[in-house]
């Protein structure tokens, strides 16, 4: 475990802005810039053997002026029983976007689609970036803090999915 920790710090030292240990969640938390995410994910998968991407989700920090959106990635290392969380802070508030890691981790595919659906964060190079839980006529992104909870929406139409 210590070996991975050192390796993690060494290999990612160039791209990690901030690193800390979250004792409550029992995992390492690394803060990176969004342009490095594909590189970091590849290092985690290939060099450090983090074999499971547990989850991808976004957070809308409505009050933060420069970095409103944050995409979180939870990784798990089955052999060493070790967890790491990557936080990518997205600078562009109007058109948030980040590179997709669906080609590195298969589980990112739908998880990133959900982030796009709920927060409107675009994932570049995603194989199939469409709404996942909501229908395509839906306007807006409901988990953004400025989306009113009583907003009405157009009636859904069945979609061709194949």
């Amino acid at each position: 475990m210590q070996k991975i920790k050192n390796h993690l710090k060494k290999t990612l030292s160039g791209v990690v802005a901030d690193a800390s240990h979250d004792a409550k969640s029992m995992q390492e938390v690394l803060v990176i810039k969004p342009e490095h995410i594909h590189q970091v994910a590849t290092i985690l998968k290939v060099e450090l053997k983090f074999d499971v991407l547990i989850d991808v989700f976004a957070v809308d920090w409505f009050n933060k002026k420069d970095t409103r959106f944050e995409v979180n990635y939870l990784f798990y290392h089955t052999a060493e029983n070790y967890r790491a969380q990557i936080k990518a802070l997205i600078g562009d508030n109007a058109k948030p976007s980040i590179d997709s890691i669906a080609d590195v981790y298969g589980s990112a595919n739908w998880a990133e689609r959900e982030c796009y659906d709920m927060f409107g964060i675009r994932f570049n190079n995603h194989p199939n970036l469409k709404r996942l839980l909501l229908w395509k006529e839906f306007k807006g992104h409901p988990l953004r803090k400025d989306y009113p909870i009583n907003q009405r929406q157009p009636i859904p139409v069945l979609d061709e999915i194949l």
Partner: protein
Amino acid sequence: MKSNAAQQKIHIEECDGNEMILNLGPSHPAFHGAIRTQIRLDGETIVAAASEIGYLHRCFEKHAEQGNYQQVIPFTDRLNYVSSMMNNVGYCRAVEDLMGINVPERAIFIRVIICELSRIIDHLVCVGTNLVDLGALTNFWYTFNVREMVYDMFEKISGARLTYSYTRIGGLSRDLYDGFMDDLKVVIKETEKAVSDVKGLIYKNRIFLDRTVGVGVVTKEQALDWGFTGPVLRASGVPFDVRKAEPYYFYDTYDFDVPVGEHGDTYDRVAVRMEEIIQSIRIIQQCAARMPQGPIITADPRIKLPDKHEVYGSIEGLMNHFKIVMHGITPPVGEIYSRTEAANGELGYYIISDGTQHPFRVRVRPPCFYFFAAYEHIIKGQMVADAIATLGSLNIVVGECDR
């Protein structure tokens, strides 16, 4: 609507007479819940598939941000409605860990028992319905009889049969009823009988073997890549169990095994679930033997409503009561990712608190979501009937998948 119908027509014409498009779901008894997979068939072989979810979406995560921390608990019932207790426990544990609350031992032991009972009924439902899809109806009665008994117990504990909302932040809503341990013994005996009956009916059954061995194979590498956890991952040969890897609630002190499959096919997934039921029974027995007496909810004044005689008899009690009722529970500013081993795999809650009474963000990591994301890849090249067998063994619970 019209343009969609026209599109569909073009697609079918493109299939040069040999291929056809078929919708599995969103409303079909063999598709457990409102999920839709569109498949392209060559004869009876699936050559392409695409899935769609969202029919049961109610934006749990947005709802959770509206109320206070206690008000999220009833929403969690609706996630995995086959084993609601585990969602209650997972959520409460996340908030407790965020606030640093020590839950009384008795509450923890009761939580473990109800969690393992929930795991048993979840697995029984999964195996039972999966076997019905394969035409083995008798097993359905064996498994659902036990489930009914557990439901009766849960009804006596919490007052509800499906949506329990039994746990509270810091403990439980009420203690066990008198005679719970006697009921538990009967249920365990009946469960063991049901499991051995079902095993006897299926394990050497030629039809069952033909339908499940080598069907819906998920290799170890695929399972890890697709983010699988729980029994489906273990059936593929990875012995990852949150209860063993990151023990919580004294799971490290119980003597139990983690069953692991070899081939990752439908047969292994059924067998792993059957074996996990036996292991859950072992945990329940040890837990019941060690059950301590004592309070069932923490005495921490930040969350516990003071006793009535304190509210009416002292100014501190009255003020504390007012504070909790009016302002709710206010965890300190912070973030936590708390996970428990639910029946389907790792159930994670990522909670962000901004110091107010409303959660800033509640993210659920649903295990089923990742199973169903991979489903369209698993069934490629299989027969339609095998796709149904595979789906049943993955145990997609749509309440959790769609949230």
